[in-house]
């Protein structure tokens, strides 16, 4: 009876730790900022990148910019999922709190995974807000859209990008220019995941990389949901996207634990 109660309280402690870590890491990411700067960092770059690609497309001779508009909106969660999560992990080292974290008895899984909760929700909300704005500005037709499926796809994309964020955050712990790698990958997504054009237009060897990345299948599924597809039509894409996301999150966590173990042996993590 006693051990059952102790087990229950351990689970409660883990859940509490998960949410507290999630909240504090999210506050640390954005609370120092002003609302205007926060808003600009959320929508500014994405909006103007979208405009840039729209005009590049128009100059190239594409008549309909909606493919680019929806693609760039669906890419928005990646800003939170990749940059937000990787920064939340990497800043532990930058601000000198990583040693305390590794020295604490707190469970690593809730501490590590908690860093994704609010960026995932934030990324989902960002894209969900941007859709109606696109409806007004670019006359995006949502009349046939399978709304719940579309929202589900956006939430899934937000989650799967956080898996990549975990990996990049862990890399940032052992590489001082980790944020440069993160930024480069984010820029590369404009080509690789079907944001501005279908991935079928890429050379075959690049397409292999595309399908190994999160978002590619998620964006395809979201586009189908936008056009009114139902679950059977997108199920394979959705399940594939979920699988890729889980694999990336597990890889990120494993990498984090390996780095932790290595740092305990060498004691040189802060020198890197």
């Amino acid at each position, binding site marked *: 009876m006693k051990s059952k109660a102790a087990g229950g309280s351990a689970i409660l402690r883990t859940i509490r730790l998960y949410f507290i870590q999630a909240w504090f890491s999210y506050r640390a990411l954005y609370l120092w900022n002003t609302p205007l700067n926060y808003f600009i960092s959320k929508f500014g770059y994405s909006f103007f990148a979208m405009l840039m690609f729209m005009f*590049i497309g128009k*100059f*190239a001779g594409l008549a309909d910019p909606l493919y680019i508009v929806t693609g760039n909106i669906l890419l928005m969660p990646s800003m939170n999922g990749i940059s937000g999560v990787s920064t939340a992990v990497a800043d532990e080292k930058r601000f000198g709190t990583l040693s305390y974290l590794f020295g604490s008895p707190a469970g690593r899984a809730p501490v590590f995974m908690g860093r994704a909760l609010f960026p995932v929700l934030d990324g989902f909300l960002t894209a969900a807000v941007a859709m109606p704005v696109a409806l007004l500005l670019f006359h995006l037709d949502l009349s046939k859209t399978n709304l719940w499926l579309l929202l589900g796809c956006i939430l899934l994309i937000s989650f799967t990008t956080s898996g990549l964020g975990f990996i990049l955050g862990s890399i940032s712990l052992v590489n001082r220019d980790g944020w440069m790698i993160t930024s480069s990958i984010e820029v590369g997504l*404009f*080509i690789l995941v079907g944001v*501005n054009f279908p991935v079928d237009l890429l050379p075959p060897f690049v397409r292999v990389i595309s399908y190994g990345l999160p978002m590619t299948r998620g964006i395809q599924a979201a586009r189908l949901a936008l056009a009114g597809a139902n679950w059977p039509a997108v199920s394979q894409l959705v399940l594939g996207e979920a699988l890729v996301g889980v694999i990336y999150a597990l890889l990120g966590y494993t990498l984090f634990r390996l780095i932790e173990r290595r740092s305990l042996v060498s004691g040189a993590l802060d020198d890197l």
Partner: protein
Amino acid sequence: MIKRFFRLVWRQMNVQLKIRIFNQYTVLLFFLQPLVFSAVGMILARAAGNLAPDLVYTVIGGGIMGMWSGLVFTSTWDITRDRLYGTLELIVGSPTSLGKVEAIRTFTNVMAGLVSLAAAFLAAMLIFNYSLAGANLAGALVSLLLILFGLWSIGIFLANFLVWSRLSDQMVEFLELPVAVLCGFMYPLRILPVWMQDISMIFPIRWALGALDECLSGSHDLAVLGLQWGLALGIALLFWAMARWLDGKVHDLVRISGELNSI
């Protein structure tokens, strides 16, 4: 006096170039991001049924984009780094004015950005067989010098805001894409709605870029080129004058209030 000035320029440029070379972010700004934007342009051109992309805008425009991105981020990061490492106070307190230091740094950043343009030209010529035969090379050189001067004047203008407040770095960095969109780095300005073309008139690089495009297309029309060069030079000088005025204001502000480290 002149010898001392050139010594200062040399020392500043030396340090600045070392920082740029050893910073991997430079690779992203000067090469990777322009490459991605150019690649998107090329793939979209192919998707639209064009046999070949427009090399001036799609490839060389990417190089201009690299120069601009490099300037925005390196110039903001210079001040942010000084603030972070505590050297901003030392510069403000030194007999050499911060404005002068920033002017030399920005000049170095602009010149370093030329590698992005050079890489784009090389790619256009070696990979896509772009030819400069028939181009107005002397005019293109004048236009390029005006692009550099325009970039430099905007760079020193923006640097003041970063000294003024640490929160302005996000605002300044945010300008990267809006200016690129408005100035038509990767497409001709006629693509933009008229109201956006009107806004773009306040940027000197817009006029110098227009002239560069004309010259690369072989235009020798001095009336058209002269107007664009004149506007580019005039507006760049206006930015420079505003930068000088702001420099004095900001310098006084941080010295009088003593709040440099807290703002």
